[in-house]
């Protein structure tokens, strides 16, 4: 009896999560897949017809937005690495016994909702707002200068909103480096730069890898930043999907675009993992 229970335990532990995923992930995904292959219109209803046209039409029509999403996602991720790595490094190695305070300060803005934070950025960056107003009255920037409704605003917003998800995994990877390993490198004649390049950087890669996964995917599929901070020329694929679903009620196109995005991200992740030699990276991470 107890043996039976012991062998069942792992499955019992898996059950709540499995059920959750089945109801809220697997079923909607199947429904969406079937939606994407339907044809018809809002007035007469949609029927399942193995209609591939939603994919072809969606990709040709919204080609620009798809490319823009990937470009914005990539640039914002790179910005986050550039900003986040030094922060994570500083907290991990120079934070002393105040590390948890710094991490808390880092997370503090994120106790405010994602949309609210983005809207406050909108206020801050607006044409005569807190940033540009004083600059314009001082004559430092021309009167018609604006930041909102540019790709810079959207990319900046994306980089800002997902930054902690970049910093935290890098911090965890750096924090796990045994200080004696760094001393050993110094003992073996490595300079500060060499210690960083040959020891710290390679050992932080699992963290960077995790950070990229956790920021690139949501940044690429985001629609809030583009709709709050962007203009008509900055719409991302997330905005298109939202419009198709909620405004045009063109469910097949919206579903087809969602699947296209999903496939694109999956392929991207696998190529990226392969290029970095994930097997190795994850191995180090699992140490």
């Amino acid at each position: 009896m107890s043996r039976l229970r012991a062998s069942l335990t792992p499955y019992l532990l898996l059950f709540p999560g499995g059920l959750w995923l089945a109801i809220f992930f697997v079923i909607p995904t199947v429904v969406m897949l079937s939606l994407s292959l339907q044809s018809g219109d809002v007035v007469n209803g949609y029927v399942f017809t193995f209609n591939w046209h939603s994919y072809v039409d969606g990709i040709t029509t919204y080609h620009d937005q798809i490319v823009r999403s990937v470009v914005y996602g990539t640039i914002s991720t790179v910005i986050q690495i550039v900003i986040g790595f030094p922060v994570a490094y500083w907290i991990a190695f120079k934070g002393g016994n105040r590390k948890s305070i710094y991490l808390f300060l880092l997370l503090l803005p994120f106790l405010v909702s994602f949309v609210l934070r983005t809207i406050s950025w909108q206020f801050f960056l607006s044409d005569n707002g807190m940033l540009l107003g004083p600059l314009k009255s001082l004559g430092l920037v021309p009167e018609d200068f604006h930041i909102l409704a540019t790709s810079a605003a959207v990319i900046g917003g994306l980089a800002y909103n997902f930054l902690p998800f970049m910093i935290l995994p890098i911090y965890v990877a750096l924090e796990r480096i045994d200080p004696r390993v760094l001393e050993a490198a110094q003992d073996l004649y490595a300079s500060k730069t060499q210690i960083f390049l040959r020891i710290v950087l390679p050992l932080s890669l699992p963290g960077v890898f995790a950070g990229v996964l956790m920021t690139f995917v949501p940044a690429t599929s985001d629609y809030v930043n583009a709709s709050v901070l962007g203009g008509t020329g900055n719409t991302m694929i997330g905005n298109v999907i939202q419009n198709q679903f909620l405004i045009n009620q063109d469910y097949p196109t919206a579903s087809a675009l969602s699947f296209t995005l999903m496939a694109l991200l999956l392929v991207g992740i696998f190529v990226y993992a392969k290029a970095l030699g994930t097997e190795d990276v994850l191995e180090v991470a699992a140490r």
Partner: protein
Amino acid sequence: MTEIQAGPGAAVAAAPVPGDVPAIELDNVVKEYVSHGEVVRAVKGVSLAIAEGEFFSLLGPSGCGKTTSMRMIAGFEDPTRGIVRLHGEDVTNVPPNKRDVNMVFQSYALFPHMNVWENVAFGLKRKKVPAAEIKRRVGEILEVVDLVGREKRRPKEMSGGQQQRVALARALVNRPRALLLDEPLGALDLKLRQAMQIELKRIQREVGITFVYVTHDQSEALTMSDRIAVMNDGLVEQLADPREIYERPATKFVAGFIGTSNLLSGTVQRVSGDTAVLALGHGDRILVPVDGAPSAGQTIDLTVRPEKIRIAKEQPDGDLSIVRGTVAEVVYLGTYNSYVVVLGDGAEITVFEQNAHDSTITAERGDTVWLSWQPRHSYALR
């Protein structure tokens, strides 16, 4: 086995000969740091001179300052006061990567993302040694530590003993003028540790360089060292060769820390020649060699090793220390019996009796026994 190091290959090493420049010198070194607003004195003034080619151990309990002393030799800690010299040169302000010593860390500190070969070649690459020479030297040292054929392994794919040997090779391949080892065998099990002790000694003889060895394990230090500095509370209590440390402990601390010791004290009754006679009452007496002339009535602390004491049921005679007591404990330990004998004044003495002839025991619990030992086996403590 491959000859690694040209130069002083002589295995015999001893205290520095006056006039020779010591390989490593600590000159009245003090290390203080501030922790929670309080000044902690980790090392309180240590002076050492370690000879070229010597196997030198820093032995003591945790927190005695031995690791801090070693880290000052390596350059990871700056002394608050005092001077560190390597081969006569003041290196007090030289960073670790510019010092010609290498360290083997307690937890090995191998680079987890590099394989054995890359780990071992790391130092040579930083020193910009030509690739062909790196290849040759790494190959040679892997032969010395018996890791040929495992070049492509990652540290975590290896056993503790193998990682230990990688750490050793990684340091030795650079041909440092001294190798510093910080409790390198601490993580290994007993069998492996004993095998590695012999291995380390062999490697040291083979490469002929100075080893400084930090340990809290007295048997390890006694087994391998040419000389030992026993440290306690930031100071060196005694600096001598293993035999001297064991046979003639200079302080109460050393006597208690190294092996099993009996600590006794008594009042001087009279002095004849260089031997003091201590009276313990009940007709007991202890003879102890003394320097100078202690006056009668002075109290002397002394130590005597358990294996030096004879246990008997009859009162022995002769010029011996003789005390009488009651057996409180008898433990059979295979190669010897261990007795705990309580004296009249309540002091306890441990006695080891070799199982040389037959395995009968001399006395049972509760028996009254006489303990006796040669005067020279009593050792007065500072």
